[in-house]
């Protein structure tokens, strides 16, 4: 089956510091990875979409300078939250997709970021 492991599950960082989260696809090759942030009210924001053979595309209000993403191969992606502040708190989720035909996104448990 298709599984996605995301780690760490939760992290606490001091205001102004950075933290990195990783996403591993197991049992399939992820031709695209979407990074989301989910608020405590459960609202999703799409941060960026990384697709094989295409540049990483960031959504409005999110930048590479703040949320650099690496997608070096078809099973791994990482994202860093640089200079985290209170407004960056939330559950960060990576959704991995097999290919263009299968529209399903497979998610891990997410990384819950708290900022002190």
């Amino acid at each position, binding site marked *: 089956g298709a599984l996605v492991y995301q780690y760490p599950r939760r992290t606490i960082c001091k205001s102004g510091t950075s933290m990195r989260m990783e996403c591993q696809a197991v049992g399939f090759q992820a031709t*695209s990875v*979407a990074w*989301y942030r989910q608020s405590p009210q*459960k609202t999703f924001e799409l941060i960026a979409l990384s697709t094989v053979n295409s540049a990483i595309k960031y959504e409005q209000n999110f930048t590479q300078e703040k949320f650099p993403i690496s997608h070096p191969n078809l099973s791994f992606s990482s994202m860093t939250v640089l200079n985290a502040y209170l407004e960056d708190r939330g559950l960060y*989720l990576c*959704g991995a997709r097999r290919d263009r035909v299968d*529209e399903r*996104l497979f998610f891990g448990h997410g990384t819950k970021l708290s900022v002190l």
Partner: protein
Amino acid sequence: SQWGEENLQALSIQEGEDVTMNCSYKTYTTVVQWYRQKSGKGPAQLILIRSNEREKRSGRLRATLDTSSQSSSLSITGTLATDTAVYFCATDAGTNAYKVIFGKGTHLHVLP
């Protein structure tokens, strides 16, 4: 925003009852997916319905899609306490099928 304001709601029902959740969207989509997110976990896809389909069934689930009104529904028959979760509909951006945009979600609480 892709979504109508009516998407956010909370429902509390008794086990065994049927339930229908709705969502509406503003821009064209080629598919509507419904996801379920249980507490402490990421979303998991339940069912997908394409723009050329009006209805799709999978076990106790039934999804409908009305492209003229840009709305979709997910029905669950004979709910179980384990159906307690947040349910989201999700659309693609039309022009970029890799992009998946989630709606606000419905909190469903099924009482045992």
